[in-house]
């Protein structure tokens, strides 16, 4: 029993989950029950998949030891490509495919540049952040094209489903993808290579892992997930604005770190990234319900974010200090 507790506390994603529950209870009380009400939950759960999909990709990439700051721009570029192609008369599916292929190409470029020239991915993807955003504006001419909603199978992406219409279809996408990527990371040899590559690159290389390929694959997965998330968001809000996703890069990295992913690579879990993204969304939403003054809003968000990580680290430390032989 104590052994189990110890093991759980030491897992950062579980500690973060515990904090998440505390926060939910806190906000539920603060908001006098509105927080977990259907109306609010529908809002939270509608937005969550978009953030969480980005966080999944970024977490995977960070475990692999690299950064992606371009996710926010890719988030905008992919749906913009889709919308522009559709106004040019393309069907939804081919346009979607091209949109995601563009993301994959950007991921490939990020990875290739980073590895070929041995430069930090921070710079490659920072440059790509600017470039992809610029492309988004260029292809749209600055104006959001109208989305031909009637030609799009909305029910597949954003219609409400499930009991009490609590979820959107995007939630299912998210769950499926989360499970797949989790399995990829924890149960396959590819996942093993990702961890080794991020954990200690010289050793990974020495043991014959194709670490460049692994990294490029992670870059591509990350970009494609960001593009998919952006597409879902655009379908939900109905307008492919060229400005969506700005600032998402830091939020996604923060989600990963809150969930226990190391900035140095090698450590982390997909579920941790998801918990982190949820935590960020819950804090944001809960603060509104708690009627924080507009000018203090950011302060509260910042403080709670730090608090969440401090709490997480503290719980882990408690866990480690428990004197139970586990091995």
């Amino acid at each position, binding site marked *: 029993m104590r052994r189990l507790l110890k093991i759980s506390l030491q897992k950062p994603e579980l500690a973060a989950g515990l904090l998440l529950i505390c926060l939910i209870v806190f906000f539920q009380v603060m908001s006098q029950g509105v927080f977990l009400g259907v109306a609010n939950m529908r809002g939270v759960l509608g937005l969550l998949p978009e953030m969480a999909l980005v966080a999944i990709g970024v977490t995977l990439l960070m475990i692999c030891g690299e950064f992606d700051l371009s996710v926010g721009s890719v988030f905008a570029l992919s749906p913009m490509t889709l919308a522009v192609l559709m106004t040019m008369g393309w069907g939804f599916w081919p346009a979607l495919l091209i949109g995601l292929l563009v993301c994959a190409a950007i991921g490939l470029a990020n990875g290739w540049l980073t590895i070929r020239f041995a430069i930090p991915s921070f710079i490659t993807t920072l440059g790509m952040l600017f470039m992809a955003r610029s492309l988004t504006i260029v292809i749209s001419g600055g104006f959001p094209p109208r989305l031909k909603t009637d030609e799009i199978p909305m029910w597949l992406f954003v219609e409400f489903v499930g009991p009490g219409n609590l979820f959107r279809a995007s939630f299912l996408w998210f769950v499926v993808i989360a499970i797949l990527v989790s399995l990829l990371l924890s149960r396959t040899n590819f996942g*093993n290579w990702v961890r080794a590559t991020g954990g200690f690159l010289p050793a990974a290389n*020495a043991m014959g892992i194709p670490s460049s390929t692994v990294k490029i694959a992670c870059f591509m997965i990350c970009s494609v997930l960001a593009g998919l998330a952006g597409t879902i968001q655009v379908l939900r809000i109905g307008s492919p604005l060229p400005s969506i996703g700005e600032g998402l890069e830091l939020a996604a990295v923060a989600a990963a770190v809150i969930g226990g992913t190391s900035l140095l690579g090698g450590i982390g879990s997909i579920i941790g990234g998801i918990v982190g993204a949820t935590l960020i969304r819950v804090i944001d939403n809960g603060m509104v319900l708690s009627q924080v003054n507009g000018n203090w809003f950011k302060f509260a968000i910042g403080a709670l974010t730090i608090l969440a990580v401090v709490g997480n680290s503290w719980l882990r430390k408690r866990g480690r200090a428990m004197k139970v032989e586990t*091995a």
Partner: protein
Amino acid sequence: MMTAAREANHDQPIISVRNLHKWYSGVHALKGVSLDFKRNEAVGLVGDNGAGKSTLISILAGLHPKDEGEIYVEGRPAEINRPRDAMNLGIETIYQYNSMVPNMSIARNLFIGREPLKASFMGVGLLDQARMRSESMEAIANVDLHLRSPDALVGELSGGQRQGVAIARAMHFKSKVMILDEPTNHLSVKETNKVIGFVKSLKEQNVTGIFISHNMHHVFACCDRVVAMALGKVVLDKPISETSIEEVHDVL
């Protein structure tokens, strides 16, 4: 024809190195090394600190690129650009440093890059975790190392335990050529003896061994030939039977 010719020539060296040069930025670490490693032979590679031993074997293992010179494996010119290439040619290496990922478990470390899979598609597949656990326990027991569980992280092991895991890995995946760079460092007496026994046993298993050590007693206990390097060059290359610890010490 070719094949027959090669088969016939059983004395042909398994690895030949000709005029190998290596520059590390401002250091000329290998200055024209030529060396043959014969089949089923255990070679002791000795030399002062910084002589270039690790550099030589890291080129053979594909970790560093060479700057000049040729490498022949089984008589054919070999391009070894990555560790994977060396592995595919049958060269297995234990490095002096950097051979484990600290944040991963022992079982995973043992199998990195060569995971047993239950099912796979285009090289990516589901890990056979049960097999990884059992085989890793076995591999570790084989080197007389007593570890709590295969799920402990390598970064939490003592220095010798870590080295032991590296040895276990190499012994588990033995290949045509085994390169061991100072494998007995950090190891306890018992395990050291295991390693020496292992090097000795390679011959019976038709495996060529390259054993780097500063301990001449170990080298003389398990090798057939000793190669001494100094300042990036080979300065002595004799069968054990024709030399002595003193002679080797003298050239260093």
